[in-house]
């Protein structure tokens, strides 16, 4: 059990800076997910915590001790790899006990730990099999078992579910969450899948181009993104961004999207954007669930408009609609009974109480 701290950690490969000075404090027992597109430096960061990559600059601390020059085996960590990395010539039990056997633990204790981990992961029946006799999901369980029996200070997961099919991934996601509830060990989990990040994490770290864009709880990131990158990366389907301008009409602040479409801002938002420059290039950020079919009783801040749909995607519980505004494609979510059809008109409404305004140049959320 330990906290992990990163201080201005830099990783440079020859002329490429993969990680550009990141600071991160991970509390004891916390489940942290590093998420970002490929090449954002998340895996490199994880591997630096593991000790598999040297750090170019900065400090990494595990349990308060600087571990920059400590070899992986002395960092008291366990890691689960994307391709499982099970030892193919060993049985499940031998795979799980390899680390303990190297450290010369007593046989009885090794057996007790394996039994406990196997029970927890529901792999008791597989204990004498070789990895090649296991399915992908079972292999991933064994890989987790190998990490659990070590009882380390920190668990590191490097995209552990990427090799599994969609259904199994959801199942294993829940499994990992359950394991973390039982074995409350500090966990750093790397993924490029924002759904995994949102569902698993206590706090999510969104990374982009070697830097941390934002750190926050899943809800925090979803509702209060700090940058355009975070706003667009978290959430599926992604947030809509529409070029817009702020205007004062009859003493009230409005947001203009097209010549025809101008919405008055609800009071809370008007107050927030009161001091925003009227000449700035702005983007209106709206999540698809805030672009819905208009209903008869208008609510405050929910403004109706007409659109002609390009494409509809019936998902069962809802229908995703796509239409174009000022050259930008917009996605909305309507009820399956709203009468949305490909190429058809539909009266929609935007919920401006949940709008975001972004600076188009800097990408910062205002």
């Amino acid at each position, binding site marked *: 059990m330990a906290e992990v701290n990163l201080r201005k950690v830099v990783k440079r490969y020859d002329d490429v800076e993969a990680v550009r000075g990141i600071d991160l404090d991970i509390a004891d027992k916390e489940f942290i997910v590093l998420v970002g597109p490929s090449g954002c430096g998340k895996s490199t960061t994880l591997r630096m915590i593991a000790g598999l990559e040297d750090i170019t600059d900065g400090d990494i601390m595990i349990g308060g001790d600087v571990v920059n020059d400590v*070899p*992986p*085996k002395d960092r008291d960590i366990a890691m689960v*790899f994307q391709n499982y990395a099970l030892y193919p010539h060993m049985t499940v039990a031998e795979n799980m006990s390899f680390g303990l056997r190297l450290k010369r633990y007593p046989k009885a204790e090794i057996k007790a730990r394996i039994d406990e981990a196997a029970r927890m992961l529901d792999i008791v029946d597989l204990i004498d099999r070789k990895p090649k006799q296991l399915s992908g999901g079972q292999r991933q369980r064994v890989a987790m078992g190998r990490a659990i029996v070590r009882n380390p200070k920190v668990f590191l997961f490097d995209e552990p579910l990427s090799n599994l099919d969609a259904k199994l991934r959801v199942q294993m996601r829940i499994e990992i969450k359950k394991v973390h509830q039982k074995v409350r060990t500090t966990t750093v989990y790397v993924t490029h899948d924002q759904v995994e990040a949102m569902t698993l994490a206590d706090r999510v770290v969104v990374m982009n181009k070697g830097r941390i864009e934002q750190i926050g709880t899943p809800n925090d990131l979803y509702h209060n993104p700090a940058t355009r990158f975070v706003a667009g990366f978290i959430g599926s389907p992604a947030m809509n961004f529409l070029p817009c301008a702020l205007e004062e009409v009859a003493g009230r602040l409005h947001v203009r999207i097209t010549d025809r479409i101008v919405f008055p801002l609800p009071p809370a938002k008007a107050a927030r954007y009161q001091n925003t420059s009227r000449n700035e290039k702005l983007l209106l950020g709206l999540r698809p669930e805030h672009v819905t079919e208009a209903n008869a009783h208008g609510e405050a801040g929910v403004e109706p408009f007409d659109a002609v749909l390009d494409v509809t995607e019936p998902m069962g519980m809802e229908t995703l609609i796509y239409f174009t505004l000022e050259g930008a494609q917009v996605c909305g979510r309507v009820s399956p009974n709203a009468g949305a059809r490909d190429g058809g008109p539909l009266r929609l409404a935007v919920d401006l109480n949940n709008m975001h305004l972004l600076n188009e140049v800097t990408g910062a959320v205002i």
Partner: protein
Amino acid sequence: MSTLAIDKAGPRRKVKLGSMSNDRLWALRWSYFFLTLFAVIALLPPIYMLITSLKSSAEISAATNPWWVFHPTLSNYIELLSSNQFLRFFWNSAIVSVVVVAVTMLISVPAAFALARMKFWGSATLATGVFLTYLIPDSLLFIPLFKMFALVGDLTGVQLIGRWYVLLFIYPTLTVPFCTWIMIGYFASIPKELDEAAIIDGASWFQTLTRIFIPVALPGLIAATIFAFTVSWAQFLYPLVFTTSNDQLVLPVGIITTLIKGDVFNWGQIMTGALLGAAPPLIIYAFLMDYYIAGLTAGATKG
């Protein structure tokens, strides 16, 4: 072939033999033709050896059908196997080959592991360099090697030339580069995460090699072992040059030097000796065949 049978069995469906199946059929016919041809060419000499080894000297020189044994005899085998000299050659060959295989593996496995996994300055160049040394033919190397050992003899007074154990120093110059090269290929095909997992589990480099890499790359190791053994066992030029007295000779050279007396060729015993000499590699092949083939394909696709 089975798909063809199924096609013919469907009478109502109009079977159109596509170009694919036609191509496949012809490819099969050609491969059978050439494989049979090569098998015949490769097997004829040993069969001829076997036939000749079962004949007496009189029958060999008689003007009868050379492909048939009219009066089979085991006298050649009995004579050779009861000859201390022949057994001495056999023993020399065996000990040289076994020691060379052991030395080769002890050097080339750790070397390959280091070159494949521990990225250090110049490791890639070094790996290529190791292979290049193998490309220099031994017929070019034996004179400088002879000079080197002669010089060592002059400087230290330790005279290695003429002794069978000089071969223990020379054969590895042939086997180590090639075996290292094969093993680099095998080790490189092992996923990087496997040694990373081992390192995180607390294994040292040496433990990673002995407990993960060697078991996982066992087919490659066996392929390399067979290669090293075959090279050592069948080597002719080096022992011919470096050993002279009869008690120091290895089998291939021994057969030639002792069974050809002047212009008298003792064909029956030469063939018997060659056949007996070919037996140990054959037995090893037979035992390790499955591993060897698995090893060859693994190396071909991943190495």
